[in-house]
């Protein structure tokens, strides 16, 4: 009882005193902290009177955040990063494929035959699971090994906050928090991380907008997909010496489109269900720091490349099994895969895609990373190009980007399919990890569902529109 009384005594006294001291207590408290801080700093910080003639940070900032040059420089830097990635990953990709697919796979098969493994078991394990994993490594490892360190170097140098600085005004204008520019940039690494980073936004309304729209930032899992599709479909239409630049431009275009959609959706949300004023904040630009190259290489390879690759491999293993099964279980004369693809083709064509892509997205729901390998494997299966595969459901040998492109063209793929696939890869549901993170952060099933389905609906709408317009004009 006495404890109860104590509490109330203290709280009552606090209430009384709060009336006495008046409203400006908070400000005067803050002021006294400031004045103490400046007094202490005055006696312990000594500035050199001679200002250095050249301030490195200021000079760079004046250029990269300038009104006219800020955005063009941003596009240029992004394009160069992708161009290096695309040009650089072709050769190691071929090398990995020739080892993992051309050499190890037949060796495993003949070993399995020599110990009399049943055909279905060696099919599931070697033609399904192993090939899916080998494929993921061959396709994804080289671009990641190049892209992630480059991106980490930019981050370490201090460029990303400048991107946020250039963008924050745009976000404020659409009624979102300026800091959303920061969480969006985080999303370029990983959407789940971007969603968690939204905690830096104080207002719940603006935080929710930032969480819902984070998926429009292309993430680690989707960069390689975009780079690959751009190389195969967009780059191959250009003259060879320009192919790399054209593909890089296409990827930058998709990334910018993502930013555009995040602005539009933020605008829509803040005008309708999440109405309110934008709050103000100050963004501190950190000093540029010389990146520690070796350290950055190490962490970007360990934290990002291996992390993303491992995740992809973990999901590719069961997906490979599923692919082999749907390609080998028959209903009458046709396999499950063919049944679904034939059924889904009309729907797919309507939005510029095809049944194969829709099936691949269903198989790859747990992880965006394995969509492309799944699509390629299923395409071979449907087209039935016997010389490139070892039979039904076996992933073909990817010797080069040209070979891949030839196979996809044989499968009825056009440039529209490529463009639509890039758009759909930007605009579809977040991966399972991100969906779970959104649920943990918002604690709301409703907003989790909105964040999940809003992008899919947008993706279908955008792809449909593009496909219809394309068919009219081309």
């Amino acid at each position, binding site marked *: 009882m006495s404890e109860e009384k104590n*509490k109330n005594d203290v709280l009552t006294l606090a209430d009384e005193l709060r009336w006495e001291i008046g409203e400006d207590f908070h400000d005067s408290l803050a002021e006294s902290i400031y004045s103490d*801080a400046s007094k202490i*700093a005055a006696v312990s910080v000594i500035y050199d009177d001679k200002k250095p003639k050249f301030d490195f940070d200021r000079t760079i900032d004046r250029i990269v955040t300038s009104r006219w040059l800020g955005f063009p420089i941003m596009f240029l830097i992004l394009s160069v990063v992708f161009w290096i990635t695309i040009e650089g990953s072709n050769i190691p990709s071929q090398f990995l494929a020739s080892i993992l697919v051309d050499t190890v796979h037949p060796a495993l098969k003949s070993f399995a035959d020599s110990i009399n493994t049943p055909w279905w078991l060696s099919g599931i394990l070697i033609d399904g699971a192993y090939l899916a994993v080998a494929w993921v490594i061959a396709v994804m490892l080289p671009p990641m090994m190049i892209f992630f360190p480059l991106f980490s170097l930019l981050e370490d140098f201090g460029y990303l*906050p400048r991107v946020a600085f250039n963008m924050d005004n745009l976000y404020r204008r659409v009624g979102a928090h300026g800091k959303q520019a920061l969480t969006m940039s985080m999303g370029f690494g990983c959407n789940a991380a971007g969603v968690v980073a939204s905690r830096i936004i104080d207002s719940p309304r603006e935080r929710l907008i930032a969480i819902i729209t984070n998926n429009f930032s292309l993430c680690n899992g989707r960069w390689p997909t975009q780079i690959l599709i751009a190389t195969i479909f967009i780059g191959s239409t250009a003259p060879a010496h320009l192919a790399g630049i054209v593909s890089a431009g296409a990827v930058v275009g998709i990334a910018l489109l993502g930013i555009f959609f995040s602005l539009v959706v933020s605008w829509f949300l803040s005008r309708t269900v999440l109405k309110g004023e934008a709050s103000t904040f100050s963004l501190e630009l950190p000093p540029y720091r010389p990146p520690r190259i070796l350290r950055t290489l190490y962490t970007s390879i360990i*934290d990002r490349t291996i992390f993303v690759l491992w995740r992809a491999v973990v999901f590719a293993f069961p997906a490979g099994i599923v692919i082999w099964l749907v390609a080998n279980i028959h209903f009458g004369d046709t396999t499950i895969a063919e049944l679904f693809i034939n059924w889904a083709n009309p729907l797919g064509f309507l939005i510029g895609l095809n049944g194969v892509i829709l099936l691949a997205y269903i198989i790859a729901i747990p992880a965006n990373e394995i969509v492309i390998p799944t699509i390629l494997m299923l395409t071979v299966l449907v087209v039935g190009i016997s010389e490139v595969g070892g039979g039904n459901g076996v992933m073909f040998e990817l010797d080069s980007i040209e070979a891949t492109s030839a196979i996809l063209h044989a499968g009825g793929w056009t440039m529209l399919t490529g463009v639509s696939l890039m758009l759909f890869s930007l605009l579809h549901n977040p991966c399972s990890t991100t969906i779970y993170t959104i649920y943990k952060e918002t604690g709301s099933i409703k907003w989790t569902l909105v964040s999940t389905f809003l992008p899919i609906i947008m993706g279908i709408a955008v792809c449909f529109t593009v496909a219809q317009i394309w068919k009219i004009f081309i």
Partner: protein
Amino acid sequence: MSDQACETCPAYRKADLKKLGINMTDFDFVVALAGNPNTGKSTVFNNLTGLRQHTGNWPGKTVSRAEGAFSFNDKKFKIVDLPGTYSLLSTSQDEEIARDFILFGRPDVTVVVVDATRLERNLNLVLQVLEITDKAVLCVNLIDEAERKKIKIDERSLSRELGIPVVLTAARQNRGMPELLNYIFEVSSGQFKCKPHRISNETRELKSAVEKLTSKISEQFPHLPNARWVALRLLDGDQRIIDSIRSGELNTLFKPEVNEDLLMESK
């Protein structure tokens, strides 16, 4: 090259540092790592624990808390990397995580990491931390950048004004880390007694109101180590603190007997 001369130097003892990563069983002391965003807290954290918590030149990199451990002078330390914040007054989630840990987590020492090139602005947070806790060490990080900008920091007068140990560091280059370790050890083991600076220049009415409430609080809750800070927060109408008094959370947390129990449980 004799080791003799080095033995007296704190840097020598760096050899005693064992980086324990995330092995955090049976620690003796808890260290909290606070500071403004982008001052290099995570770099200090990684340096002490040998972990590779992702760092970035990026304010707001750490939004939740990361934990790790290290051992020094045969004592095991658990270290908690708090989100970077500009103050402990307002209500965003990252600030609340940082404040709640310093207040309710009762660390044995709070290391405040500040940016040497922006000391004055960073001191606001330091002063707020010193209102909550007595046991703190100031780590003036990024001293290499300050040198580049021709800014000199007088750590002795800073230490005298703040009443806590001050060490100049460049965590990226491992500069000053042995001294920091030493101070962490001395403050958390009670060898170094801090006399923290308290915010002073209030108006007379304010001062008397704060004193009245502070003495009331210390009378009713004799175990509370930071009655004055609680008084300030109550006068400011801080709902989290009002709730924690109403629910009894604040009181039970600082009762000595209960603490023993908690300690037993955690072991």
